[in-house]
């Protein structure tokens, strides 16, 4: 009996069923953990994701198992419901809204044009994905990587192509972390030294009233135009209203701290846990990774080219380098603009000016996601 029990234990252990694909996934998890910790690649999200991959690819744990016949499901199955039902990304957006200062955008509203132009890569990647044989829902989910905005990408992919969720999410966050490597060559390639040296004038002051009314009006206008964007823009702007109104400090603090932290842990681990070997180790994942880079690059191109257009139209008052910040990836992309600006002209302080397009990019990609959802959702 002892022998039989031990045999059963061995059979039910992970060693007996650990195969090459799962080992590859474990190595991938280790690599992501390394990148998250040592290279600080968006660790708040990629570390939980990596750990989720680890847990989901250790065999026979049942940690993502659905409940069957009254037996409860796995831990991560339950935590995953918040992803599946689209709850977590919206709550994260509430926190982001509470952390975001739209002041620079209000001070120079034309920033929004850059935030629109820098969604260019979404559509380029969408078209190429279609050419590569992905269906429209999949192509839209791959394209949204070019929005450079994690929660938006997760939100859309969950609704359109949940089987691509881990690949899209990992690509989105990884490239966001790689912004300082992806963007500068493109920025320098597309701009002249003279353009990059442009020093921008001071911004107008913004009244408190404007800051309070802004989130409300953005909600009304964008949701009227694109109803499907309501959960994302609505929660983003609710968070921002908490921040700016000055009378609900405790709600604002909770939205940008405990609530977003709890949701981030749950979202990260469970998105990672959808990356099982069966699901993830496919040629299409590789394609998504490549297409994601493509999307990021072309979003940068879109932003910079539009920046050049604004440089031309304003006769040299707008530095085209702030265009690349329109991809969102707050505040990383704005810092890249600052650094490149200063490289061309040490007296150049673009950070504040780049924050406008930067936060506009968050709105831009949410709107793009709303459009794609309206076209291909439900």
């Amino acid at each position: 009996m002892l022998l039989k029990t031990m045999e059963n234990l061995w059979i039910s252990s992970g060693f007996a069923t650990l195969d090459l694909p799962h080992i590859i996934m474990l190595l991938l998890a280790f690599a992501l953990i390394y990148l998250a910790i040592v290279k600080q690649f968006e660790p708040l999200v990629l570390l939980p994701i990596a750990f989720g991959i680890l847990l989901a690819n250790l065999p026979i744990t049942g940690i993502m198992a659905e409940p069957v016949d009254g037996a409860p499901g796995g831990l991560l199955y339950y935590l995953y419901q918040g992803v599946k039902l689209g709850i977590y990304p919206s709550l994260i957006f509430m926190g982001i809204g509470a952390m975001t200062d739209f002041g620079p955008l209000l001070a120079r509203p034309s920033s929004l044009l850059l935030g629109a132009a820098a969604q260019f890569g979404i559509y380029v990647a969408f078209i190429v994905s279609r050419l590569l044989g992905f269906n429209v829902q999949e192509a839209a989910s791959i394209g949204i990587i070019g929005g450079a905005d994690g929660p938006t990408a997760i939100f859309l992919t969950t609704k359109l192509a949940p089987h691509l969720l881990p690949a899209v999410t990992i690509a989105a966050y990884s490239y966001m972390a790689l912004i300082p490597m992806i963007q500068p060559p493109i920025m320098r390639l597309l701009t002249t030294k003279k353009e990059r040296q442009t020093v921008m004038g001071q911004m107008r002051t913004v009244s408190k009233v404007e800051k309070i009314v802004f989130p409300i009006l953005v909600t009304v206008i964008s949701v009227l135009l694109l109803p499907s964007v309501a959960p994302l823009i609505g929660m983003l702007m609710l968070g921002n209203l908490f921040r700016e109104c000055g009378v609900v400090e405790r709600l604002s603090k909770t939205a940008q701290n405990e609530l977003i932290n709890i949701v981030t842990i749950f979202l990260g681990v469970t998105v990672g846990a959808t990356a099982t070997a069966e699901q993830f180790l496919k040629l299409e994942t590789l394609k998504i990774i490549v297409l994601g880079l493509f999307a990021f690059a072309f979003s940068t191109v879109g932003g910079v080219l539009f920046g050049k257009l604004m440089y031309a139209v304003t006769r040299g008052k707008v530095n085209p380098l702030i265009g690349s910040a329109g991809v969102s990836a707050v505040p990383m992309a704005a810092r890249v603009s600052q650094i490149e600006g200063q490289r061309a002209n040490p007296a150049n302080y673009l950070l504040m000016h780049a924050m406008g397009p930067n936060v506009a990019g968050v709105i831009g990609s949410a709107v793009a996601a709303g459009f794609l959802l309206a076209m291909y959702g439900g």
Partner: protein
Amino acid sequence: MEFLDSLLISVLGIAIVFAVLVALILMIYLLSAISRQISKSKAGDSDPEKDGQETIPVISAPSAEPQTLSLIDVDEKTAAMIMAIVCDETGIPPNQLYFKSIRRVQDEAPVQNEGV
């Protein structure tokens, strides 16, 4: 044919994004015009501190010499880097941080980010 479809959708898509964001731009211009009007008529009417609706110079210039940063013994690139790092570390949005001077650390002197 399928390619044409996706191209059309994409053109429409970027157009929609621009349309929504241009609508927001118009809205902001309207909003700031109204806001200016109100604060002007208020300024005429009564004292501007009333009612919390006064114009707060959110992205304001430091009082004396706006936008001036004295760099002492430090090159501008390093200074920019320091500012970016400080923003990042402290989590304070860049537009709310004011640096008055950045001085190179001497062997005997500590790092000084005065006014941070």
